[in-house]
């Protein structure tokens, strides 16, 4: 009885007042997030205003704030993400298919599953240290360059990878992997079993069922997860900073600085993964650490605006994909 008295007040008016207050507090806390978002975006756009211009997108970095640009970061991030996606998407989807469709519910499967969810919680900087040791230094193996003659161009693979695009992409791929696996698993799980049973009943093999029926049906969900994972990778600074990507760089990976470069030297494409690079968030971090106020406050804010625009575009496309397919597929 005494306990009830402590938690329960019989005065209805008092209870309504407390209830009103409680609701008000919760409402305020939630709407505060909208205010934060507005303030953060407002402050950044305001500070970025003097430095935002189309030139900012097409110039390389400079020691002068008025001529600094983000091209090296934009192209660097582009290549970095392309290779990250190329490495992590097939492995991630493959792992999800194995876990959802093939694995028997034994201790090893549970171990893999537990391992994936733990990996998702490992701080990104620890992945950076892994990448530095395993890909940049390769545990200190002696330096050498392997040249692969492809006929039209030579691929020069430095070993260890050093501070190259491929080292960064491998690191980010490992970082994204748990997110992609978990999202793909959820997407596969939401495909109704009747679809699988129908395909198997018609004589399809297991892999035919999965590759032609289950996977296409799960694709929108998987794609959404992949895009979200990649947009997280795009904003990741810590692992790339730890890898020691170059901070002042006035060329793009593979020295493909423009479309005309690509037209003139398409052979350079093969060396893109093994070239030095910088990435958008890293450039922002370096500008924040610059000496001059103009760099710290305005150039870095302009960089942030560019980065946020790219992120919004990526997230927007994820939402579009989700909506488009949700309308089309009805079970």
């Amino acid at each position, binding site marked *: 009885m005494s306990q009830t008295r402590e938690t*329960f007040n019989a005065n209805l008016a008092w209870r309504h007042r407390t209830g009103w207050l409680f609701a008000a507090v919760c409402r305020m806390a939630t709407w505060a*997030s909208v205010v934060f978002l507005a303030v953060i975006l407002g402050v950044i756009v305001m500070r970025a205003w003097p430095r935002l211009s189309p030139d900012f997108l097409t110039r390389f970095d400079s020691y002068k704030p008025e001529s600094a640009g983000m091209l090296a970061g934009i192209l660097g991030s582009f290549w970095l993400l392309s290779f990250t996606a190329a490495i992590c998407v097939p492995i991630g989807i493959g792992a999800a298919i194995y876990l959802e469709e093939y694995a028997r519910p034994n201790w090893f499967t549970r171990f893999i599953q537990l391992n994936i969810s733990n990996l998702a919680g490992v701080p990104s900087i620890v992945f950076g240290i892994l990448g530095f040791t395993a890909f940049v230094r390769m545990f200190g193996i002696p330096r050498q360059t392997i040249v692969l003659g492809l006929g039209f161009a030579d691929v020069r693979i430095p070993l260890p990878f050093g501070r190259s695009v491929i080292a960064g992409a491998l690191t980010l791929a490992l970082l994204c992997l748990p997110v992609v696996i978990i999202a793909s698993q959820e997407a596969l799980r939401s495909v109704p079993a009747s679809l699988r049973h129908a395909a198997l009943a018609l004589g399809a093999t297991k892999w035919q069922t999965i590759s032609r029926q289950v996977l296409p049906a799960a694709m929108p969900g998987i794609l959404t997860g992949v895009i979200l994972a990649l947009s997280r990778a795009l904003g990741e600074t810590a692992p790339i900073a730890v890898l020691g990507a170059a901070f002042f760089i006035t060329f793009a990976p593979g020295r493909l600085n423009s479309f005309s470069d690509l037209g003139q030297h398409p052979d350079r494409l093969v060396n893109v993964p093994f070239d030095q690079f910088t990435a958008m968030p890293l450039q922002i971090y370096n500008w924040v650490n610059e000496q001059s106020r103009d760099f710290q406050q305005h150039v870095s804010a302009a960089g942030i605006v560019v980065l946020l625009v790219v992120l919004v575009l990526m997230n927007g496309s994820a939402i579009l994909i989700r909506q488009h397919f949700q309308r089309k597929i009805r079970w």
Partner: protein
Amino acid sequence: MNAAAAETSTPLPAETPRGSSLKRQFSWNGTYEKIIRVLLFGCALVSVITTASIVFVLLYESVLWFPGHTPFFGKVSVVEFFTATQWTPQFEGNKHFGIMPLICGTLLTTMTAGAIGLPMGLASAVYLSEYASPQARSILKPTLELLAGIPTVVYGYFGLFFLTPVLIKPLFVNVLGFSVDGFNALSGGIVVGLMIMPMVASLSEDVLRAVPSSLREAGYALGATKYDVSAKIIVPSALSGIIAAFLLALSRAIGETMAVAIACGNRPQLTLNPLRQIQTMTSFIVNMMKGDTPVGTIEYQSLYAVALMLFLMTLTMNYVSQWILRRYREAYQ
């Protein structure tokens, strides 16, 4: 929906029926299927290999002893590591390896972040699951998703160039009369708090929504107000899930790097004053790695020792959180 999910998770028959007239073709299919299966298993194994290599890399430089290779803890005693009060690996002739200042800095920012992010996140979760109209949800959910998606460098920028000069300094220096460093733990903690808040909100909202509505209805039937139902029935019955969400968010705050590296500075000191410049474990790693630290030196190895600490702390918190979640789920099925 649940039934369908349960059905699909049972493995499909591995063997396909073999007809005698199609023998050749099916044996081809069999090898093909086997290769696929092995490839997919390999993909699943990548995550295990990743974890194993993280553990190996961290242990190799910090504890594993080989002939010709002395690890970090072979050069610095474990007792010194945990009790010394100075962290100065870069000062020749004055090297001290006491991780306390770094842990203290990490806890200071994490506590501040928790004090802001956890209650706000929980309040948002309650509002979203119990009070909010569909229209309000349609604005709030994307906003929270956007907040969660903003890269952490941006939060660092916001803390260093907006919170500290525009809010913290005027308030604490001019109104309250404290002295405030240009880099301080408070600004970093606040932005990390804002960063983990969407995460707390969405994870807690999921557990609040998972509370069976029979509990709500029973509450209303007994004459409880909406406040009584949400604060005294729903939240307590989802408590373990909420605690799990809190732990996950705090572990994220501990591992957060860029926001604190930018906003909190890089002076490791043993202080509980959030207005001072501090260094967290993560910002030590990123600051040290930026410079070319010669491989094999004790400063280089100290990176791995700190990373190992960080890894163990976040791993423990994640593991406990998952354990709580599993127990909680069982309770409601």
